[in-house]
């Protein structure tokens, strides 16, 4: 139901963001954003929302 996991999972954040760096997402204006560009010059806080609501 709701696509919920049957067994409890553990979050497993990486120590490095290499796997995130090359992911390209669209922003709210539909422009490509390569995630690695976000921290190329200064630290960035990335916040993953559960949902837009």
């Amino acid at each position, binding site marked *: 139901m709701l*696509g*919920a996991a049957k067994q409890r999972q553990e979050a497993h954040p990486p120590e490095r963001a290499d796997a995130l760096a090359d992911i390209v*997402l669209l922003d709210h204006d539909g422009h490509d954003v390569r995630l690695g560009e976000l921290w190329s010059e*200064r*630290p960035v*806080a990335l916040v993953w929302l559960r*949902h*837009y609501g």
Partner: protein
Amino acid sequence: MNRDREQFEAAGLGLVLIGQATPRHAAHFRRKYELEMPVLADEKRESYKAAGAKIATMGELLGPKSVSKGIGHAVKSRGSVRQGRVIGHPAQLGGAMIVTPGGRVAWSHMADDASDNAATEELLEAARSA
């Protein structure tokens, strides 16, 4: 959230939100809450997976802890922030991460259940020591 952004900027930190839907949903979310920071759309949840975010069990979604915290948020915000229609994977949890130039993850807090969100103060403290 915009006030938080100012604090992040003062701490020398960018702030970017990522949601699991389309750019149109992201734009609507941004307008609805009058957000100034970028909101990215990750319909395929690629970045969620790469960030190690978890899929919740039913207990982690709808357990007493999550429900009571949800009600608390609704009361605290006097109804201005309330659960809307869920778009995307309903059991996908989120989280937060600080990444420094060079790609090191200096701090992270990925949600353990639906009520588990990193506090702004916690993020700012981590940013200052990043």
